[in-house]
């Protein structure tokens, strides 16, 4: 299970081509789904357009749960892109994993902590950016000393903790799912008895992984909007 990651160095910076490949494939799939479903836009939606509108309304609902739409409307595009991206990224590693020369090439990009933490850090950085933009620097800094000033260190720690939990929760769920799928696949490939024993747990776990992937995508966007609301709304 402990495959190595492929690696190359360009301009003195290390890259993982497997991650780049999977990120690209994920982006491509999301883009194709989105564009295919919005090619023939109609007033009376049919088929895929219905699904995409449902996704939009779903994300709109998440945002509206956390802040008023006047403030939150600008995060709509971010939310939809994020939920589609994370969901597709979670799903993409489920059907199979490709190992070449003992290097893992095909997997969920979200099964890599670097990527999930990058997403989480980006989101948290955005919350700070919009916090400053919405409240002004003075008020933004003041939020660290409210409601009680001596809790300020905890509030600063909270920001880092938020980033870590947001990224590692996603990573842990997806990585664990893939590990277990890999183990079951190994068991299934070992012998005819192993196959007989592995089929039903593998199917069950695949179904559960689909469920977890969807839930984690939802949670990721939900928490993004919760953190965003904490930073941009004035009544907290």
């Amino acid at each position: 299970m402990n495959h190595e990651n492929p690696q190359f160095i360009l301009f003195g910076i290390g890259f993982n081509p497997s991650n780049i490949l999977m990120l690209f494939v994920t982006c491509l799939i999301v883009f194709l789904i989105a564009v295919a479903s919005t090619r023939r836009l109609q007033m009376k939606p049919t088929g895929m357009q219905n699904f995409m509108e449902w996704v939009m309304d779903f994300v709109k609902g998440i945002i509206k749960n956390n802040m008023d739409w006047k403030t939150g409307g600008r995060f709509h595009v971010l939310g939809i892109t994020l939920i589609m991206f994370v969901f597709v990224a979670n799903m993409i590693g489920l059907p199979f994993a490709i190992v070449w020369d003992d290097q893992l090439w095909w997997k969920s990009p979200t099964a890599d902590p670097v990527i999930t933490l990058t997403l989480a850090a980006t989101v948290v950085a955005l919350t700070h950016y919009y916090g400053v933009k919405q409240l002004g620097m003075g008020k933004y800094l003041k939020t660290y000393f409210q409601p009680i000033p001596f809790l300020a260190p905890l509030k600063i720690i909270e920001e880092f903790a938020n980033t870590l939990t947001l990224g590692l929760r996603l990573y842990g769920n997806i990585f664990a799912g893939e590990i277990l799928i890999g183990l079951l696949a190994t068991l299934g490939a070992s012998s005819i008895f192993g196959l007989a024993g592995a089929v039903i747990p593998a199917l069950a776990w695949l179904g559960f992984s689909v469920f977890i992937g969807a839930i984690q995508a939802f949670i990721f966007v939900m928490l993004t909007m919760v953190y965003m609301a904490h930073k941009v709304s004035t009544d907290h």
Partner: protein
Amino acid sequence: MLDTFVLLSANADAGFLASLNQRLNLGDIIVTVVFFTILMVLLKKFAWGPLMGVMDQRAQLIATEIEQAEASRQESAKLLEEQRALLKEARESAQSIVENAKKQGDTQREELIMAARAEANRMKESATLEIATEKEKAVAAVREEFVSLSILAASKVLGKEISEEDNRALIEETIVKAGEGR
């Protein structure tokens, strides 16, 4: 750990990135952020933007449709009220016309009856008058005739011609007396 820090501080300018690469996939971070940003921008341009536009358009369409429906509902209610008022007015005017006609008919009938009655009275009076005149005339004629006859008879009886004027006066006096005596 300590070795790395020593190493880092030793050749911070050249070996920093190299040693960082052994512990952190800096490239992956950059690629993730860049890919995600590109994806978001592209999707906003090609998918979410148009879709949001259509959804907004639909919301607007629905809003206008509802407004129009409300307006036409009020319009039809107004028209209905108008029609009802018109109908009521027409009914009232029809009733008043009928009443007027009835009243006019009554008046006309009264007038006709009055005129007829007056005419009848007038005719009756004139008839009575005429009858009276005729009677007078007849009586006078008879009286004259009677006087002439009487004179004739008397002259025959007396055999003597007397002046007709004297006789006449005498006889008329007699007749008047006789009339009084009756």
